[in-house]
């Protein structure tokens, strides 16, 4: 028989029990949709995180206190006193002779605060920074100015805010320079608004309040002595990022008096390190989500096997007749495999559609809740889902189809 006839016959047979075929397909639809949606969400999360890491600024490295995570964390040295990063560390890094690859240095203290304007309260990230922060982090000011040297030295109560924060406080993204808002109940005058970098779920740089570190230290984000939370470092170009990281490590080892062979009490991160870490995390996330989704696909496959077994039992007499009329084992095997693959593939196609809808919905929900990221359905995910659903149809169809094929015609015909 030609392929089109086999397919046509499978279609006729499946359409004779539409409800049952439909429900079987539903199992595959849900499985494939789950896999497609989960892969899309994973991909979207990965893109979003990668985007926000890239958004940190080119050539940017940073260093913060504490050892890098790893097995060494668990040894006895964990409890030793570590030297916090400080402003003097930042100054030491900003040394053209010891660190020729470092262009600029920006120490930062940060914390979550409440900002308010006329009773409207919004939670935001406050950054206490020096004047070099704008350059290091590639922050552009669309309206007003960034913090000046005088304002920094004068402990001025001024703030540069992101457009999202402006919107939540004022209901508008511009035209608010000169207004006074309260941050942790202290009045601050808005002197500038940053350019939107596009929101991300990871670190939304459009919702932030940047204030002079001197002021922050006095009133908002208190720190012991001249301790800072982290230091951003800009290398002279992206090629010298690793060189800059080495220079930073050497300088800080000296500054923190770390004996040779001891673990560092700080961690230097390049943008590439972050991208690698993020890729690892999102990779695990995607595999995890995809794995859970694959279980539902497996259940869908078992559903197909179940229905095909019922179908074989129900059509024993038909199989006997076909064999009496000259159908070989192969003919019967192909007939039933075609039916199961067809069910599965059809479920696969609808599942891809549903998966797309779910991904779209997840994207919309994420956007509505203020953590926008964009689930991406890749061609490879669609291909994977199609091949996988076809394979499931064949794999779970083989057992029932074989049961049908090896039926002895005499016994099959006797069945009623």
């Amino acid at each position, binding site marked *: 028989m030609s392929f089109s006839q086999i397919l046509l016959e499978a279609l006729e047979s499946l359409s004779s029990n539409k409800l049952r075929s439909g429900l079987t397909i539903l199992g595959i639809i849900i499985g494939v949709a789950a896999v497609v949606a989960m892969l899309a969400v994973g991909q979207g999360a990965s893109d979003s995180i990668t985007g926000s890491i890239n958004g940190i600024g080119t050539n940017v490295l940073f260093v913060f206190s504490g050892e890098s995570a790893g097995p060494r964390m668990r040894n006895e040295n964990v409890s030793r006193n570590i030297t916090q990063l400080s402003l003097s560390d930042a100054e030491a890094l900003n040394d053209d002779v010891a660190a020729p690859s470092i262009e600029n240095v920006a120490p930062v203290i940060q914390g979550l605060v409440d900002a308010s304007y006329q009773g409207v309260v919004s939670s935001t990230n406050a950054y206490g920074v020096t004047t070099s922060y704008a350059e290091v982090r590639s922050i552009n000011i669309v309206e007003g100015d960034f913090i000046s040297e005088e304002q920094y030295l004068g402990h001025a109560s001024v703030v540069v805010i992101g457009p999202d924060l402006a919107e939540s406080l004022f209901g508008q993204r511009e035209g608010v320079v000169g207004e006074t808002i309260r941050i942790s109940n202290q009045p601050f005058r808005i002197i500038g608004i940053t350019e939107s970098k596009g929101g991300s779920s990871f670190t939304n740089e459009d919702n932030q309040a940047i204030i002079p570190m001197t002021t922050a230290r006095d009133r908002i984000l208190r720190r012991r002595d001249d301790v800072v939370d982290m230091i951003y470092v800009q290398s002279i170009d992206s090629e010298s990022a690793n060189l800059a990281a080495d220079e930073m490590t050497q300088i800080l080892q000296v500054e923190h008096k770390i004996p040779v062979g001891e673990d560092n009490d700080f961690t230097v991160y390049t943008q590439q390190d972050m991208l690698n870490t993020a890729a690892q995390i999102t990779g695990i996330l995607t595999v995890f989500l995809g794995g859970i989704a694959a279980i539902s696909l497996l259940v869908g496959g078992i559903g197909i096997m179940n229905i095909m077994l019922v179908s074989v039992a129900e059509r024993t007499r038909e199989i006997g007749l076909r064999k009496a009329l000259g159908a070989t084992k192969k003919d019967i095997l192909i007939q039933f495999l075609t039916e199961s693959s067809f069910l599965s593939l059809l479920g696969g196609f609808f599942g891809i559609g549903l998966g797309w809808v779910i991904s779209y919905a997840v994207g919309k929900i994420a956007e509505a809740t203020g953590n926008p990221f964009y689930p991406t359905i890749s061609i490879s995910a669609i291909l994977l889902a199609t091949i996988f659903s076809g394979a499931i149809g064949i794999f779970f169809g083989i057992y029932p189809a074989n049961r049908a094929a090896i039926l002895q*015609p005499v016994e099959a*015909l006797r069945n009623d």
Partner: protein
Amino acid sequence: MADNVIVVEDLVKTYQMGDIEVNALRGLSLTIERGEVVAVMGPSGSGKSTLMNTLGCLDRPTSGRYFLDGKEVSDLSDDQLALIRNKKVGFIFQSFNLLPRATAIKNVELPLRYSGMREGRKQKAIDALISVGLGDRLDHRPFELSGGQQQRVAIARALVNDPAIIMADEPTGNLDSKVGQEIMELLLNLNKVSGTTLIIVTHDPKIASQCQRAIHIMDGVVDEEQS
């Protein structure tokens, strides 16, 4: 030797039913000439069905030899038997056994499809249906046809591949006597026109009396032959 389409020698068939061995056929021999119309009769449990299954190549004998159309078929593989059934045997069942969702044409086409025929199937199926008097019911499905009409479709299906023998298992058993007689006349007429050998299993002496020969089976052997 005359032109024998079926030669069976010393056929034995033993079933295992749990712990008990059932000897359905105990050394049965018979010959059937090409073009003959033969009735096979016998009470249930006589081995009649087993004989029919063996003659129809649906089942293999435990021992003994069976020549169908000059070819020994007693020790062929399943797929070889499927080919023999397709080319040499036409089946007519008591309960018609049509595919319920398929039209008359599709039902009649089925053996042609399994024989790998690609061109001209439909025309051949139509010709077969016309020859059984169903030229005006080509696209009807079984549930749109009367019992007699359904059996006619089954007859068309049995003869569409020009088989050497047609095996009819109680072909009139599910029909009232008038329609049954029509079917019987159709079968006899086809035999006359095309010379196809006809083997009819029946309980009905009236049917048997219309055949050229009646073979009575009893306890797994041929008990008596009447001509």
